């Protein structure tokens, strides 16, 4: 069976349309990022404490807020009613993010868990170890370091990939690929900002995977272009690229489909911990497929034309 018969779509004539579409999505993302003062970073990068606990019945956020308005740790009273409190997975589960306080008691996370346990007798499991889901505490200094590392990771990955493609193909292909990557990451970042999702360490890992995946897609097309350029020396550059995209189109769509299946399943069944990661991957797969056709290849054409007119 075949989904895609021999196609002959003139992708290069839709170039302007693609640029406008991408440009407006990126712009919307940038506006959202600007309005919110940058991406919404998780405690991995900002520092702070996250606790997640599991009650035996559905909990109302406001009652948790009330309970957290007076937490005693040691002999000091804290008011945590203003912190971000959310359901964590199901309605029984609650997570709270507490920004760093100075001076921070050593056992802040545990103290909050204990406080919540005591505040709702009858609504908690008999064993405290079934109550605690998760505590994460990141010192502000570590947070700053992790941000630095994440930025370094993305920059060095891009650098290495640029180098690899320059060696294997041509520099203009590398530029096209990198432009497509920047496009994918920008759009995912923008969508995260619009959806008010957090950027955590695992989302950064998803970004890196998007980078790898999107490149995978781009390179398969580039490879076909390289092959066709060798054989069809008389045809115009634009035509060669166009038919190369068409020839690899069915592969592009089938692979994107299988990858989309699995990340969608992960998003659906993977649970709360991995939810944002899977969401980033879904966006990445869709955008990555699109960008290898509508961003990477057109940029190669544009660069080639510029070269030729010189």
């Amino acid at each position, binding site marked *: 069976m075949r989904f895609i018969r021999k196609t002959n779509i003139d992708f290069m004539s839709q170039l302007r349309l693609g640029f406008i579409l991408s440009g407006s999505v990126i712009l919307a993302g940038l506006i959202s990022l600007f309005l919110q003062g940058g991406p919404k970073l998780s405690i991995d990068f900002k520092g702070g404490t996250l606790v997640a606990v599991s009650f035996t019945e559905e909990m109302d956020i406001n009652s948790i807020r009330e309970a957290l308005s007076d937490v005693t740790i040691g002999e000091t009273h804290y008011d945590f009613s203003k912190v971000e409190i959310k359901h964590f997975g199901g309605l029984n589960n609650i997570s709270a993010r507490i920004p760093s306080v100075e001076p921070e008691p050593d056992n802040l996370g545990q103290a909050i868990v204990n406080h919540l346990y*005591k505040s709702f007798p009858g609504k908690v499991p008999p064993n405290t170890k079934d109550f*605690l*889901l998760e505590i*994460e505490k990141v010192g502000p*200094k570590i947070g700053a370091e992790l941000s630095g590392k994440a930025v370094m990771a993305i920059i060095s990955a891009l650098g290495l990939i640029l180098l690899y493609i320059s060696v294997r193909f041509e520099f203009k292909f590398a530029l096209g690929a990198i432009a497509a990557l920047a496009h994918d990451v920008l759009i995912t970042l923008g969508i995260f900002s619009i959806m008010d999702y957090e950027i955590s360490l695992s989302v950064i*890992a998803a970004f890196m*995977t998007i980078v790898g995946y999107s490149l995978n897609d781009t390179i398969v097309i580039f490879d076909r272009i390289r092959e066709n350029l060798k054989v069809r020396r008389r045809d115009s550059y634009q035509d060669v690229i166009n038919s190369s995209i068409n020839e690899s189109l069915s592969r592009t769509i089938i692979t994107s489909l299988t*990858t989309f299946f699995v990340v969608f399943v992960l998003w659906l*069944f*993977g649970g709360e911990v991995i939810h944002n990661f899977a969401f980033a991957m879904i966006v990445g797969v869709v955008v990555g497929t699109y960008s290898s056709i509508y961003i990477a290849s057109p940029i190669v054409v544009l660069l080639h034309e510029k070269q030729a007119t010189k």
Partner: protein
Amino acid sequence: MNKKLTPRYIVIALVLIWAIYALWPTIRYHTLSPDEKENLRANGTLQELEAKTIKQGLDLKGGMYIVLEVDIPTLASNLATNKDKKFEHALTEAKSQLSSGSPDIDFFTILGQIAEKRQIRLRRYFNEYGATNNEVLNRLRDEANDAIDRVLEILQNRVDQFGVSEPTIQKQGNHRIVVELAGIQDTQRARALLQNTALLEFYIVKSPEVVNDLLIRIDKILKGSSELDELALTEETADTTKPKEEAPVSEDEVVSVSELFGEETGELSEEDTTADTSVVVDKRLFEERPFSSLLRNLGNDIGVPESNVYAVNKILALPEIQAKLEAENGQFMFGNEPEIITDAGGKRERLYRLYYLERDPELTGGVIEEARATIGGQASGASGQPVVLLDMNSEGAKQWARITGSNVGRRVAIVLDKKVHMAPNIREKITRGGTQIEGFANMDEAKDLAIVLRAGALPAPVKIIEERIVGASLGSDSVRKGTLSVLVGLALVLLFMVFYYKLAGSIADFALVWNIVLVLAVLASLGASLTLPGIAGLILTVGMSIDANVIIFERIREELRKGKTPRAAIDAGYDRALTTIIDANTTTIIAALVLYQFGTGPIRGFATVLFWGIIISMFTAIFVTRTIFAAITQRKGITRLSI
């Protein structure tokens, strides 16, 4: 290539046999019944088996991941002698610059800069005659590195004795230590065990006459001191932050307390201790005897009501009191736990003992050779109570004999991390070096103390700067959901491939299943743990490694459309697709390697799986499938290919 299939069969068979061999312990372990497990545990072979299975990461098994930072400024301060104001100020400034500055800055460099600016000669404080500041700093750096290695070793010892399966303790960077404890339930206890400096000291307690005399003098110093008013004021403002339970008696003043020197009161098991945090002190008495009015009599000792601890600490920290104590060569220290005293009126009060000790310790815990927790014997004062018995080395025993011998009749305070555990009377000279520490809430506490004393004191305090605890229930939830996702994702892809590529699709499916089995086999033999992001990586591998087959099959279809025979189409398809697949996979491998390099913990798990998934997919999706195709087309008369 048709004639040369046998070597290919052999390679494939060897790899498959190896995979089953590598995975066998995992399969066996998970199919064991609880009874069989118990049997193996009794044989002692269970651990051996466990070591060969695929480990679950902390996020799946539940457990804690802690990053500790060695407190370098405190270490420097501990090493220094003849400390004066100038030095203390420089240290404070260096500390604040360290916390605000970039993470790569070295504390000693900052200290050097400050010393340079203020023209402080560091050799004065570190007994280095004729050394320049830089030489002193270099020596301090060596000391610090040495201290971190010792901390690492000591923590290793403590954790080993705590009895956690497969703990990992690693140095990270210059002054950090990462501790991973899987499957741990009592996180508070583990945290205390790691952070406890376990500095054991023995001090001689000053006589009651000296103490009485001192109390009167402190009262005198405070009377008319302007800072006293300030103190009273801060107490009042501190009090407004919490609801008052009752109106204070007219003549009296409510004094609140907000510090219990780090005693943890938030424990779940503990009864509620924070009901009443204010105490009533007679105002006239307070004016007349500002210090001693805060205290109570507790046998031969001073008792401080829990609620007055904050005020007492504040008064003791006043510079003029500190100067007085220094001149007297003494210091105050609290007991480790409050005692509940019922007074004549039936009112229960929680009192901390306050001891006045010599300024310098007679002996420190370095001489401890053996420490063990047990139940106190009939003869001792702590019969039936948990105690820790200490044995000293010969040097320590000698000193201990000298100290006890020359101080018969006086009291010696046994101090752990600046808290007095007990202060018994010395009845006679102790020659053997044995001694006993009492005053534990329960046996676990005594056991943990014995562990930390055996392992030795930390040369510098450690701070928790990052902590991740995953409860067991969330972990098993993640395992369930992760497994479900893998199975559903895999099923979808497998079905799609058969549906779309028919026979060729099922060949690819066969390769894909082997791809996953091989990734798991590699994980098992590397001893790498499977994390939740790792499972995500596995799912992604399913989606992405099928790509190689898609590229090949699409190519074969193209060649078939050009009118080639199945065999020629297969050969051409594989040959042409090979470079594409290698180029495309290399970029994903680059991303995985970078992730591994920069990521920590779970993220590394993801990178590992992604990396091996792609490497192995090149074997399964190209080598294995091609061999199968070759075997099929070898049969004569094949004119159609099911693709």
